[in-house]
């Protein structure tokens, strides 16, 4: 077995030192009838080339996003990741290190996290950020709980433009909680939750660009909720948008949660991704997750450590701010490397290019009979209304090798107003030829 270093002779020698006859004797505390008498019904060990063949066969049964025209978004976006990012994150010292609990021999990870926190704070326009959470959806649930702790109130309003999976995760975390108000889907981008705010409101959760692609007015939302002493949680599922849009922090957000997948991370069929969380300095002691801070060593040299751990489960146990133990370290590293390769100039160019590609897509879609564009505003994603259910159209186009977008009904079932809605995204990878192929196929299908 290629991963197990001992020879039989070495095992025997080690058993001699221990003073037992067999490895089985070491399992003496296990009641005898519980030790599997015969091997489990699983295949035996296998050489690398056969395992690879099996996995390649499974991978080959999928239609990869890059195999043809592709327009899916809805919380996960296909962007170009520079080759150097994946090369760097596979270095042993990044890939096979543990959480930096021994800071003297983990300065690489710690300095990277400090840089990551600074980058996240700057793109979101906030004062501080943590070292990442699992993803945007769980980050949103954590933000809601954090806002409740900060305000000591419990009423939370989720905007109808919040990604339905995010809403479901918040609901799951706050099971059967009467103080959680989820507004129904708002595909038009109109109507919102501001008139539902009252003196008991702990926080409102507003996503921008929202699930349907509309850009939402965070400033107005912040003013409305601040007037009653509540907090604004801003959610961004497409973090590239922050390259052209005003930072949520500059508009009054109190907690910003982003899905960071777009920068540095592949689509991966949904995970692993990386949740970003940023907030104001005064709120840090209620922020969940790991935080890295600067300090000095015994000789006065600058260095970094995990800090404020008195918030965390391994110290506080049942009094912790969250049960979170890990962050999304390697995905945060990929994010940080990609963002440092972009820099302000590159990040802005990338965002402008995404918007330009989305404008080209919107212009082309608007020319098609039977297609109505719902968005007056968008960044790189938009919603169109078709003259028939969108899921059938998407399936028909998939047969032709075109992945046309996400039917809203996939995430918002049993709601007639969304059945005909199709959500499409464009990124820097969307070519004119892709758009032409999509539009030609749509025309034929809708004809």
């Amino acid at each position, binding site marked *: 077995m290629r991963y197990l270093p001992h020879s039989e002779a070495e095992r025997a020698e080690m058993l001699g030192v221990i003073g037992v006859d067999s490895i089985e004797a070491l399992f003496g505390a296990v009641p005898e009838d519980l030790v599997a008498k015969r091997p489990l019904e699983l295949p035996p060990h296998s050489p690398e080339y056969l395992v690879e063949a099996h996995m390649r066969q499974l*991978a080959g049964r999928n239609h990869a996003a890059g195999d043809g025209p592709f327009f899916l978004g809805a919380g996960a976006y296909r962007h170009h990741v520079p080759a150097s990012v994946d090369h760097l994150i596979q270095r042993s010292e990044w890939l096979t290190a543990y959480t930096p609990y021994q800071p003297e021999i983990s300065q690489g990870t710690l*300095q990277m996290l400090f840089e990551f926190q600074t980058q996240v704070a700057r793109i979101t*326009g906030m004062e501080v950020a943590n070292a990442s959470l699992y993803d945007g959806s769980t980050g949103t649930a954590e933000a809601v709980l954090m806002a409740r702790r900060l305000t000591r109130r419990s009423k939370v309003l989720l905007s109808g433009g919040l990604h339905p*999976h995010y809403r479901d995760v918040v609901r799951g975390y706050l099971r059967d909680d009467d103080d959680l108000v989820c507004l129904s889907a708002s595909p038009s981008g109109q109507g919102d939750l501001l008139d539902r705010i009252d003196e008991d409101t702990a926080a409102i959760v507003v996503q921008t660009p929202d699930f349907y692609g509309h850009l939402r007015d965070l400033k107005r939302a912040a003013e409305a909720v601040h007037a009653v002493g509540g907090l604004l949680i801003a959610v961004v599922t497409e973090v590239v948008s922050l390259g052209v849009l005003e930072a949520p922090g500059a508009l009054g957000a109190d907690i910003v949660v982003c899905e960071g997948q777009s920068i540095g991370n592949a689509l991966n069929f*949904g995970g692993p991704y990386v949740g970003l969380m940023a907030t104001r300095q005064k709120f840090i002691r209620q922020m969940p997750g790991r935080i890295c801070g600067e300090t000095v060593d015994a000789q006065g040299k600058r260095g970094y450590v995990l800090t404020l751990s008195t918030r965390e489960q391994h110290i506080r146990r049942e009094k*912790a701010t969250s049960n979170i133990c890990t962050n999304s370290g390697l995905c945060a590293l990929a994010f940080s490397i990609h963002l*440092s390769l972009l820099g*302000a100039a590159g990040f802005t160019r990338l965002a402008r290019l995404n918007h330009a590609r989305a404008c080209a897509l919107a212009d082309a879609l608007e020319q098609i009979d039977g297609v109505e564009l719902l968005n007056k505003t968008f960044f790189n994603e938009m919603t169109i209304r078709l003259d028939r259910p969108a899921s059938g159209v998407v399936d028909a186009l998939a047969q032709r090798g075109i992945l046309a977008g996400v039917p809203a009904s996939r995430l918002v079932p049993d709601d007639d107003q969304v059945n005909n809605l199709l959500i499409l995204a464009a990124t820097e990878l969307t070519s004119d030829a892709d758009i032409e192929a999509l539009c030609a196929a749509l025309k034929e299908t809708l004809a």
Partner: protein
Amino acid sequence: MSMNTRGRPTGAGTPSTLAANGAALLPDEPLLFEIGDTEHSGVDLPDAEISTARLGGFERTAPLDLAGLTEPEAMRHYVRLSRLNHSIDAGFYPLGSCTMKHNPRLNEKMARLPGFADLHPLQPKSTVQGALAVMEELSHWLLTLTNTSAVALTPKAGAHGELLGMMTIKAAQEARGEAHRKIVLVPESAHGTNPATAAFLGYSVKAIPAREDGTVDVAAVREALSPDVAAIMLTNPNTCGLFEPDVVAIAEAVHNAGAFFYCDGANFNAIMGVVRPGDLGIDAMHINLHKTFSTPHGGGGPGAGPVVLSEALAPFAPVPFVRRNADGSLDLVEHAEAQSLERITAFQGQMGMYVRALTYMLSHGGDGLAQAAKDAVLNANYIKARLADVVTVSFPDHHAMHEVLFDDRFFESTGVSTLDFAKALIDEGFHPMTMYFPLVVHGAMLVEPTESESKQTLDAFCDVMRDLANDARDGNTERFSGAPYTAPRRRLDETRAARQPILTWEPDDARAQAAE
């Protein structure tokens, strides 16, 4: 000047010259923001002309202060930073409870196949049949290894799995009209996540003391059980490195009281392929794919924590899950039906980790997984046997499972602490063991070697441990009190970091202004 086992000078003699040893290849690396600027970029992108008409007046007005690097600058920055880290590939990493085993590179290669990595989570199901098959196959392996009824793959880490597992217990009891059960029993030796998870769901936590021998007494459990108890959260093998001998009786007592048995599966590596947790009577258990099934720890994540469920809890498994259609194709159920719980994450969870874990399982096979568990247990007991005469074994009467617990009695009154001892290991090229956990012994040192280590490595580690133990006893405290001497940094001031938190970089002049 004294020398350590690697021929390096030790002691407080001339630490500044000692620190220079090897420093030629480990230069300090400035921060990204001190190297780059807002104009540099390592990505070539066209300058797109855009109109702001569709941005609704929400365009960024404040300048974005984000340092950029060209590709050669970025390579150097991140390669240099990486060299300041210890890693499994570079050296022994015996962190108890963390299972720092070898991460096979085939796993990485497979996870990067475009057919897995370049898949959108919301593609039509007909275009992702291979990905759904990975989820189905992984589930089959996990169910077979544990003899349980259902598995929820989506939790993103062990703690997330615990949360989900306890949510299913809560849902099951509410469905039975037993929402009044508000107490969760947690042994003192438990991971901190256990009480944190229980509290997160509104339970109150009742601690169960450990017996003298480090295990949980079924009598203590029986005494704590009442009609208000919802569940027990028990780690088995436990965090003292011991198999709980009463586990079956504990499960029976818990079930007889109408409560559920949540098993923390962090230590599954000790028994995979040898003991099936379902046979012990567990109702829910998370499995850390990043521990037991070798997906890389990545400097602190991403992890993955699928949860296996007993028949009683299976109906409450959350969406999404994979189901086979009548025509043989695979379906992904995305919306809660019957009693299934709401999703606990967007999309399908950690697909990248599913691919790696399945690749690992196929490589090992059922026989290789059992052998890996056995070798892990062999290695822990070998370390215990080689050190027992000089280092205090906390619970000497039992064989260890895959990790062995020592405590600080052997250097009592030498002035050396567990922390000092751990830091001295760094100077010898080893990552320290888990310190001060579990809490049931004083100055705990929990050593988990895993199956990946050769006898040669274990011997080198034991030689160093013996040498350190003898030095501590002989009063050579300098070797410990200032350690580490040869790491990229000496001991860091954690108190200062917490008292005056500096969490983001500011230029020096900005900080000076803020201080005025």
